[in-house]
């Protein structure tokens, strides 16, 4: 078997699953597939472990971590075999021909309906398109995720302006203060980030922490030189954006 045919098969298996969202795989299988998929497309784990309460994110992360040392070729092989093994009527060397799966599909639907019988409704939540993690892995994306290891690595490499702004006019410290990553804030300030730097709308990092109600972050910023009298474009200070109680909690020693 040549590499290119393996790739093609992998892509076919991936495409097949994506074109048949009605196929109902167990979480275990889904996670396995996810792990191999990430190894094939990215390689080793490159994101921070999601927080405890994010059990979905965490399960996915764990699944990826578990197989991260698998060579891409093998991961593709495993992916393909896992798809075959689940008996969803996809086999390598068989194209995604809808007519060939229709009967099987109907059976699946029937089974699912039986399982859902008596459970005909569900709590609606906000709908989003299925988006994969953004492909860019720069210091801004690590900051948004709170990946302290990667951030320090890049900072250590030296050739980076810690007060640089992204296309939205925000610095790393703005993002960390918005997302509530206290350890990142500590690191950035330790490495000389300007604690009172302004966004395009003249907001300080403290504005972001106060609006987003990250108490620990706001406290840290306030007690490390943040100037709480700076007003943004709306002529409001950081504390004008939050409740009196929040402000008091921030200020107290």
């Amino acid at each position, binding site marked *: 078997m040549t590499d290119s045919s393996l790739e093609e098969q992998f892509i076919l298996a991936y495409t097949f699953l994506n074109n048949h*969202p009605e196929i109902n795989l167990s979480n275990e299988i889904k996670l396995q597939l996810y792990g191999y998929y990430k190894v094939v497309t990215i390689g080793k784990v490159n994101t921070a472990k999601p927080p405890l309460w994010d059990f979905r994110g965490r399960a996915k992360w764990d699944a990826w971590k578990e197989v991260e040392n698998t060579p891409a070729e093998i991961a593709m092989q495993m992916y393909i075999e896992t798809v075959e093994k689940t008996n969803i009527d996809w086999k390598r060397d068989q194209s995604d021909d809808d007519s060939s799966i229709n009967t099987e599909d109907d059976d*699946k639907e029937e089974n699912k309906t039986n399982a859902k019988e008596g459970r005909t409704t569900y709590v609606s939540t906000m709908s989003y398109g299925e988006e994969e993690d953004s492909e860019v892995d720069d210091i801004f994306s690590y900051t948004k995720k709170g990946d302290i290891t990667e951030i320090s690595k890049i900072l250590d490499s030296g050739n980076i302006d810690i007060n640089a702004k992204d296309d939205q006019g925000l610095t790393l410290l703005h993002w960390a203060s918005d997302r509530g990553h206290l350890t990142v804030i500590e690191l950035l300030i330790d490495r000389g980030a300007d604690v009172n730097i302004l966004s395009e709308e003249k907001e300080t990092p403290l504005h972001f922490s106060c609006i987003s109600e990250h108490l620990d972050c706001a406290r840290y910023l306030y007690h490390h030189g943040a100037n709480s009298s700076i007003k943004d474009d709306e002529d409001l200070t950081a504390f004008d954006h939050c409740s009196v109680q929040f402000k008091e909690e921030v200020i107290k020693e």
Partner: protein
Amino acid sequence: MDEQEHDHVFDGEGEGSTIDKMRAKQEKKNMKKAKKKAAKISAGGSKADLEDTAAKQKELQEKVRMLVNQLAIREAIQPPPSASSSQKQKDMSSHKFWSTQPVPKHDETIEEDGPIEPDTPYDQIRKEPYVLPKEFEWVTLELNNESELNELYTLLTNNYVEDDDAMFRFDYSGDFLKWALQPPGYLKTWHVGVRVSANKRLVAFVSGIPADIRIYNSHQHLVEINFLCVHKKLRSKRLAPVLIKEITRRSHLQGIFQAVYTAGVVLPKPISKARYYHRSLNPKKLIDTNFSRLPPNTTLSRLIKKFKLPTETSTPGLRSMVEKDVPEIRTLLNEYMSKFNFVPVFKTDDEIKHWILTKDKVIWSFVVEDPETKKLTDFFSFYYLPSSVIGHQVHKTINAVYLFYYAVKESDEKAIKGRLQGLMKDALILAKLKNVDVFNCLDLLENKLFIDDLKFGPGDGFLNYYMYNWRCKGMGSDKVGVVML
């Protein structure tokens, strides 16, 4: 996803087991091959070899990534079929139960409105309950009895609805259930339970309540079916069809041969399909609980600002509804409903008093009183139905309200739009003041006139409307007025 669904993925594979065995054999072979290969690569001799492998791997990853990207682009142009499997219709032959029931088929062309089968004469209606599997028995629940109400609450809380990933569950309160199930003229015999004979545990339920509706030009006194629930562990016993047949029988005994019901799933054959919309009032909590998601390139601060609301309402003359408003609200609501095709008809003031008048933590209603004439010009109402958050360390509950009935007196579309937007914005403000996290509605009535402007976002939930033993043309959700709980 629950365990049952796991099992079903592998069901129906009994036949063709020879093929399966062969496939399994082949898999084993392939797996062995792959492992051997892996061993070879990881044990790979010299350092140069290793570097070579690493470089090759990088190259491979790059190639695959490109291919996947191309795929993503193709998918973006041509989206995959049906994102949500539950919204797909099946042909009748695959609905083992529904194909035996008087409901229209999916592919049926409907020419004329009317019943599918004639009313059954009283002497031909079965007088004894349908037979349950032998370990179960029928009961009629007495909801005025606190302990029975609690049993129902527990059954529904643990087994009723879940979203696809089972992260949220409706958390009906006892007061809510009494509001939903004991309207004027309710019948105790329509609160149908199933107990395990041995330990008397309540394991299934279905309810009916009397209702008057108008569908197109036909006025009907019928039954609204709701809260069909079977204990998770018993879903394979096929109790749901027996429950449906039993509530149907009990309706027939009262001389009622039509029913209205709703479901998230597609059955034969919906009259209309509505979509849920959600308006964030507490975006941070909704994101923390994964009810909604923070886009990677948006700051939380911006999102919070986007959903921020004033702390005071702006419609002059807006106040809480009180009992003396009841007759006027009845007229106002029935008049407003006349422009839709599938609506409730409120025949008595008692019904309005029950369904619309504020009951704290269940339903809140507000009216607009013209300061000069003292006449009521508009009203709106929303009901409180929290969801429990499954397995979250900080947040136990999402406080949600759902838009219920409303009416405006304006007559031209533009004036209605302006009026509705003002009223619904005030509704959001009032809900926010009650510490509500999210304000929900369906795209029924004239809700599309304010959904976008007031920053509602589409949900992943749909609600299909059905009638039992009635055939009529379908309609857009903006022609539907019936709001079911």
